[in-house]
């Protein structure tokens, strides 16, 4: 079984995330970055498949040079190889261009049974790129799986939908998305960290993928950001200490705001 896991290098939510001032793109250079937490669940699920049978796991990412850190983390968790698409012209790409580049990279990787991904990135949080990749590649896509089983050339699982839980089945190859309910991602072991150093990571440019610079980056984005404003910090409101009437005082406040 050949599995490609899509990983994204994102600004760390713990430090301050911000936009580049002159073009409103997400600042991915001047900030701490790391493997998007939600992608760890996809890496872990791929590892579980590998450990219960046989699988070759390739990590695919697109991002600035520092995104190599995200690939390394996934290799430390146990993945076998990495592909890092890096090109200056990619900066500011929208979801559509991102899906184009990743779809081309998947075609270049060639054989795969599953393309696995998390439920969304923790920065843009759109959650649309996997579906776009599936649309471009013409393969089935099933996302939001809270558990999954691979057998007999198909993936089955429980999709944790908005209004209902759905049990779904898809033939392989497929793009498969998992939620943060599916497993508990492992921490890289010392052995894993050492082994990762020997695993191959290829670096591909746009030219390697046959994608032209006009198709990607901020200037090719089909959306434009006109303005970005930092939300004024919420004001620290009234604080009362419960002296036996805390509940009543709470209702006083709710009543003054017409909630009661």
């Amino acid at each position, binding site marked *: 079984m050949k599995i490609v896991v899509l990983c994204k290098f994102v600004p760390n939510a713990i430090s301050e995330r911000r936009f580049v001032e002159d073009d409103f793109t997400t600042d991915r250079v001047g900030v701490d970055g790391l493997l998007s937490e939600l992608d760890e669940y996809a890496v872990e699920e791929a590892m579980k498949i590998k450990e219960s049978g046989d699988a070759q796991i390739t990590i695919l990412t697109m991002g600035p040079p520092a995104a190599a850190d995200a690939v390394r983390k996934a290799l430390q968790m146990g993945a076998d190889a990495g592909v890092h698409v890096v090109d200056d012209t990619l900066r500011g790409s929208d979801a559509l261009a991102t899906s184009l580049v990743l779809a081309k990279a998947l075609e270049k990787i060639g054989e795969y049974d599953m393309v696995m991904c998390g439920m969304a990135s923790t920065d843009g949080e759109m959650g649309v790129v996997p579906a776009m990749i599936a649309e471009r590649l013409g393969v089935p896509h099933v996302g939001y799986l809270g558990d999954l089983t691979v057998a007999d050339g198909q993936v089955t699982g429980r999709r944790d939908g908005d209004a209902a839980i759905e049990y779904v089945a898809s033939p392989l190859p497929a793009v498969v998305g998992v939620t943060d309910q599916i497993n508990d991602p492992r921490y890289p072991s010392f052995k894993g960290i050492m082994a990762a150093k020997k695993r191959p990571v290829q670096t591909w440019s746009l030219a390697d993928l046959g994608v032209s610079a006009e198709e990607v980056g901020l200037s090719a984005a089909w959306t434009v950001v006109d303005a970005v404003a930092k939300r004024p910090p*919420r004001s620290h409101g009234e604080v009362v200490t419960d002296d036996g009437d805390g509940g009543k005082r709470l209702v006083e406040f709710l009543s003054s705001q017409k*909630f009661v």
Partner: protein
Amino acid sequence: MSPILVLVDHHDGVVRKSTTELLTIARRLGDPAAVVIGHGLEKAMGTLAAYGAAVVYDVDAPDIDDYLIVPRAEAMVAVAEKVQPSVILLTSNAKSKEIAAHIAVKLGSGIITDAVDVQPGPDGPITTQSVFAGNYSVQARVTTGTPVITVKPNATTPEESPSSPSIELVEVTFSDLARAVRVTDHAPRERTGRPDLNEAAIIVSGGRGTGGDFGPVEQLADAMGAAVGASRAAVDSGWYPHAFQIGQTGHVVSPQLYVAAGISGAIQHRAGMQTSKTIVAINKDEEAPILQLADFSVVGDLFTVLPQAAEEIKRRQG
């Protein structure tokens, strides 16, 4: 005026509130045209007419519930090619966002997700999004193709505007790929009798401070007609089902009132609720970060404060 296409989110014709919000937004932008896929057109018509749909497109697909995303995207594209809408609006939920992603690629159109506001502009609709855990507000527009915009529930207050929509039947031939992913079974979410989290005006949430006992949280919620939410800490401890998790990896909500009980306010949680209109916190720890965003806080034990508040509300309501 070219139509504003709205994908109706419904279950057997019961139209979800978020769709009435989309129709309200669509009326700002042009003539709302609703697309109903699957069973229940007759039942849906009442709501669609009440909220001003000018036309209703009925996609006849008797077995649609056996399939997931792609048939719905193909149906939307078929309607879009027929009527050439100026905008396509969908609800920002898991299913509709995936449908929107397919539509955007198929039509070669730009896409904006999770809008919290959409207003008409000289160069097409201007969206507002709340990003980076609600710390930034972003105004954006689609510049290429037919704007595909997904809108978060509660982005606007639905306003009725009665209409007499015509009904047009649309025949769609689905691709083989559309039938690749099958829904083999489904189970409705457990009914709690409380409002849906994404649509609720008031949410009362519990966290680590409940110690696993959500009784007082539910008691206050029921006194106020509110939905119940839970922090990731509470969900990870197995105290409350994941379906009720508020936070970056759960529901991102912005109700009129959010009551956080025994929740410290980790960034993960704040990302899911800090755009709420009014925030109230009950916490034993006066240093808890949640107090810094709360409009009103009670430093105290939720096991005494919440029941007292619930009793007081009942007393006032007689």
